[in-house]
């Protein structure tokens, strides 16, 4: 091979380079820190990964606003919001552990692949020490798995699937939001009281982990009250026209339609159901009713007139009158001009809870933070007394049963709270069959 003809000069040069290359590994630091992305230089970076496009974009936008507000409050700006009502007093408004809080954002596109790529670049490029967000359980579970692997904390945002803290739970992942089982446990008694115990339900279900577990929970809880389930039809998440799914309901003999849909999906399916005149029908001698197990103000606003009188459950609502909720609504309203949604509330709480856990643990190390969060009891964040259960990293708190308001006074006043279901009624054992099959594993600090 005549390609390389060594000359004396070339050889010397090459030797010098080779020597430098051999010496180079002494400069290498193979993650010298005790954990991934330990903050340095007086600032700490958090990663907020929310859907900015796709069926959950509205929720994602509101989450982002709440994150910005939380960061402002943590850094001592604004009026402090719920930091003033939070039962733990570890936060002083000087960032986290004295480090100024900075953040990066990303678009999950409500796709697991895109969400993981976005979270990866936050961890690898921007040095995020905590990832929060997700407005779809599929995405939340995917990103939670990634955070466990990378050794950062994942503070789940809007994810309602049983699996997030059930069979896909991870030691580095924590969820403040409630779940499908809790919705069902809170909703079933109210539905029985309103609609009777002899009902035939037809389910339309978003075809992914959240839809599956929510449908399973509602079916189990309502069947325990005497209802029968006529059919369960799975609809792809990207569906926008639900008329072909709603039409068969009319002839199925069902007198209740349960829409296990969220965000844009729910707006479209509910609108289709109302347009087909389902709510004016009498079936089996009873008025036909529609139930939307997981409700949010943004969805109710999107569906407009159609939500009146429809029952569902929610994690939090801005009309609550406790000190925490009032403080949060006030500072959010002052900054953005309208009240926050439940998605905004849960991610604001998650950011505060993370910061507080860091302060109490005295470190950003995921293992220390995890320990501080496990079994942590707190109040003053708008949900009454709450506990982060150590067994599955799920928050336990009261659940709100809500109804679409008949006479809304403003475009934000679209839901009314029918009942606050006490925590004891929605609690379950960590090894409940709907949650069994997973294990937290060991916390992973990365390095």
């Amino acid at each position: 091979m005549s390609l390389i003809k060594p000359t004396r000069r070339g050889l010397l040069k090459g030797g010098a380079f080779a020597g430098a290359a051999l010496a180079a590994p002494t400069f290498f630091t193979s993650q010298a820190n005790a954990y991934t992305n330990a903050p340095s230089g007086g600032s700490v970076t958090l990663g907020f990964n929310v859907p900015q496009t796709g069926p959950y974009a509205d929720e994602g936008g509101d989450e982002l606003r709440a994150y910005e507000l939380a960061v402002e409050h943590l850094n001592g700006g604004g009026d402090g919001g719920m930091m003033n009502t939070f039962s733990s007093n570890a936060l002083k408004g000087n960032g986290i552990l004295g480090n100024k809080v900075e953040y990066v954002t990303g678009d999950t596109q409500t796709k697991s692949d895109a969400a993981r790529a976005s979270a990866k670049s936050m961890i690898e490029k921007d040095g995020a020490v905590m990832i929060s967000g997700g407005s779809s359980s599929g995405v939340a579970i995917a990103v939670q798995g990634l955070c466990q692997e990378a050794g950062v904390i994942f503070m789940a945002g809007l994810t309602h699937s049983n699996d997030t803290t059930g069979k896909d739970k991870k030691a580095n992942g924590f969820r403040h939001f409630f779940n499908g089982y809790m919705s069902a446990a809170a909703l079933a008694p109210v539905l029985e009281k309103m609609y009777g115990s002899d009902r035939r339900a037809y389910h339309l279900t978003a075809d992914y982990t959240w839809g599956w577990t929510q449908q399973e929970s509602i079916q189990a809880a309502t069947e325990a009250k005497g209802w029968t389930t006529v059919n369960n039809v799975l609809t792809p998440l990207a569906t926008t026209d639900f008329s072909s799914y709603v039409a068969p309901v009319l002839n199925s003999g069902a007198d209740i339609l349960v829409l296990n849909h969220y965000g844009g999906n729910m707006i479209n399916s509910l609108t289709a159901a109302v347009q087909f005149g389902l709510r004016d029908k009498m079936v089996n001698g009873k008025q036909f009713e529609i139930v939307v197990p997981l409700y949010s103000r943004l969805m109710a606003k999107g569906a407009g007139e159609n939500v009146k009188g429809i029952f569902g459950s929610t994690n939090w609502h801005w009309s609550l009158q406790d000190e925490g909720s009032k403080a949060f609504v006030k500072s959010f309203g002052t900054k953005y001009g309208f009240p926050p949604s439940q998605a905004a509330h849960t991610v604001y709480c998650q950011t505060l809870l993370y910061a507080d856990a860091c302060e109490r643990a005295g470190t950003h190390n995921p293992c220390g933070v995890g320990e501080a969060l496990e079994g942590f009891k707190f109040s003053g964040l708008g949900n009454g007394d709450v506990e982060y259960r150590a067994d599955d990293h799920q928050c336990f708190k009261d659940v709100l049963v809500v109804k679409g308001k008949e006479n809304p006074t403003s475009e934000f006043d679209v839901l009314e709270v029918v009942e606050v279901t006490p925590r004891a009624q929605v609690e379950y054992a960590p090894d409940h069959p709907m949650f069994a099959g997973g294990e937290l594993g060991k916390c992973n600090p990365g390095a």
Partner: protein
Amino acid sequence: MLGLNKKDSKFLIIVILLTLSTPFVMQPFSEASALSQFNGGYPDLMQRVAIFGIFAIGFNILFGLTGYLSFGHAAFLGVGSYSAVWMFKLLSMNIIPGIVLAVIMSGIFALLIGYVSLRRSGIYFSILTLAFAQMSYNLAYSVLTPITNGETGLQVRPSDVRLLDGANAPDYPNLFGWTMSTSYKWEVWGHLFTFNVGFYVCAFIAICAFYLSLRIFRSPFGLMLRAVKSNQNRMSYTGLNPRPYTLAAFVISGMYAGLAGGLLASMDPLAGAERMQWTVGGEVVVMTILGGAGTLLGPVLGAGAIKYLENIFSKINENILHGWFDFLPEGMENFFVWLFARFTGDGWHLTLGLLFMMVVIFLPGGLMEGADRIRKRFGRKSDDNSPSNPAE
């Protein structure tokens, strides 16, 4: 060297050097500078560039040589990913069985789809492949959920069987104990360079893939494929049947896509149905044309350009833009922020679209033609046989 003539050997060596120095090439700015926003030398992006480079190299064997435009290659990418993740779940977290099965399965799929689709050519072929890809996507998304886990995506769990792994085997994808996510960082003169095991695995495979494609381009088989592109009728009249050649090219490029899919899953053990969506199949078409269809290096450049835009431009949000323009008076600042926000963040597709239009209009041969023109401008003669010439 390795059955290549002198010029191709030189070319291959340049490619190898470029690939190995990616951690430096993609990290040109120092960490403290304002331009560090444009650094792309972090493991995930480097891995993606290498993997989609492989995907595009394979696609180019079909499209660049035979001229058959397939919109369905995303299906093979997805099949590769699912196969690899199933191997991680059943056999071992070592990536070798996963990648091998990914290539085999995608080859089988390509044989089936290609056998049917290649009965037609031109636009009908494109539509057929698109239909097959959409079919595969829907199968993965809702029909075959027990195998694919639908929208949630297939993931590995600690409770998986993993027959070959002992008790102490790593829980994450690895190559004989070297986990893919292991990185070595080197800080020098304010720069931070990251050397990632996963990237070098991808890079090694990408170089092998490139070498194979180089050999195919230079082989009599490659000549036959070019004959299919230039005039299929004439080829038939001379007594040659083009079908076996096109089918072979289709299967080879399908296997390349499967390899890319398997590698994607190895870097990040998750397989989602959206990987099979037709937009991914369209993306590889754009990569190939942007870089220069029919050239050897073009598709890799195209893949790099698109992945870089996707990951870097989409991260520039309005906050960062405000930081850039805060020296302007407020009205001007808001205007510029508004203007640039259309092209960054969610709007990065618009930037890509503009770039693609400019390339197609002014540089029909892709980025490689641009490189060629620059080389000519600076007085270096370009050989007719240079590897960057289009295949026609």
